[in-house]
């Protein structure tokens, strides 16, 4: 495959940045998108140029580290992570535009790498449960109905990649935050911090400068893990109920 890559290059956070065009040849349709980027970087390294910086880690679609806004879609044209996107999804001769996630709360570090520390701070604000130390508790000690377990697991499949924020016209983090709140709110283990979790995580989400939801559904459509909008409705319920009932005046 012969392709033209239009890639966002930006030296550092304060640099203005611009698109740079790179022609690339000899790409196999079996390569993953990130392997194609590796080929480009090898060529750049041989030429003595600065390779394109991008985030990646497991390359198995489970860690949520890879990002990239490809041809107007987070993680490209398929509903999957960039590492699981293959070059067969493109045609020979295509021009592919690659950009970083765009959000005030995701500042660009370099090239295509953005700082998603805001997500970590949302989790730190309340995305945890308290458990006793000591011996391992029996797995079946607390009965959880299968339907609830499945639903909580669906929410828990969020890998925190930030595609929802990247896709949202308001750069809202409500799909992410709601998935994390939902996952714990549905399980017995999450009840202790249930109210404070909703209040603190929403407050942190707002403090990070994410936008608000307009219920367009772009996040759900682009999420590589298919996290549903029902999570956002649940987060709103959790937040309203916590605001009314909690002792935090």
């Amino acid at each position, binding site marked *: 495959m012969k392709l033209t890559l239009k890639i966002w290059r930006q030296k550092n956070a304060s640099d203005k940045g611009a698109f740079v065009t790179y022609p690339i040849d000899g790409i196999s349709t079996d390569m993953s998108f990130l392997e194609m980027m590796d080929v480009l970087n090898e060529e750049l390294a041989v030429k003595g140029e600065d390779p394109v910086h991008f985030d990646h880690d497991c390359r198995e679609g489970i860690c949520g580290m890879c990002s990239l806004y490809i041809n107007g879609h987070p993680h490209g044209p398929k509903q999957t992570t960039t590492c699981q996107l293959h070059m067969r999804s493109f045609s020979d001769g295509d021009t592919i535009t690659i950009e970083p996630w765009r959000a005030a709360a995701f500042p660009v570090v370099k090239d295509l790498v953005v700082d998603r520390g805001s997500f970590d701070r949302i989790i730190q604000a309340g995305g945890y449960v308290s458990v006793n130390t000591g011996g391992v508790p029996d797995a079946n000690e607390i009965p959880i109905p299968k339907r609830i377990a499945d639903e909580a697991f669906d929410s828990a499949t969020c890998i925190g990649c930030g595609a929802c924020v990247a896709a949202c016209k308001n*750069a809202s983090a409500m799909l992410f935050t709601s998935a994390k709140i939902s996952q714990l709110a549905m399980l017995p283990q999450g009840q202790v911090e249930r109210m404070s979790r909703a209040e603190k995580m929403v407050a942190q989400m707002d403090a990070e400068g994410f936008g608000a939801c*307009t219920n367009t559904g772009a996040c759900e459509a682009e999420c590589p893990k298919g996290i549903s909008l029902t999570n956002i409705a649940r987060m709103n319920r959790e*937040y309203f109920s916590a605001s009314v009932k909690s002792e935090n005046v």
Partner: protein
Amino acid sequence: MSWVTKTLSSTIGRKLIMALTGLFLILFLTGHVSGNLLLFKGDGGEAFNIYAKFMTTNPAVKLLSYLTYISIIGHVIFSIWLSKRNKSARPIGYGVSTPPSTTVSSRNMGILGTIILIFIVVHMQSFWAQMHWGDLPVVTYDGEQYKDLFSIVTFAFQNELMVIGYVVAMVFLAFHLSHGFASAFQTLGLNHAKYSPAISVIGKIYCILVPILFASMPVYIYFTQS
């Protein structure tokens, strides 16, 4: 900040105000369209004029009308507040943005709302202000005097531009409602396997039926009263 202001100024709280005011305005539209169906009665405007007097003098209706004004103003102020935040959440846009798999209405609620607001100002100036402070002709039914709002309405809709303007405004209202109706329930957290499909269907019917009924009024008057 007290917990109330803290909750209502959060992003979710602001959306709550949008949803509640929006739903109240949907209730208002239902009442407004039902009452105005009297324009089709063909009795020279008697029923409509009696209804108009009731709507401007009844104390319970007065209370509802104040709630409506507050809802319109609240809906506008909170939408501006939210939009400003949403704009600042992405200071640098994308080079390529393909149309996402979302509806045109959902992506353009602000633009649709602005057009509807302009329409509301013109509409209130044309009829509401006339009814309240205008020098209207007076008609007498059964010995009681009524302001003849019907004659003002029929006169206004002799003008083709008015009729076209009203019909176009109702198209924008239909698009605004097509997203707003179900979206308000989602924001309130009312997303349920049993009820959401019904809410969605009712929303679809409502966003088509109500604007069509509204739009048919100037069209009917234009063709029957000239």
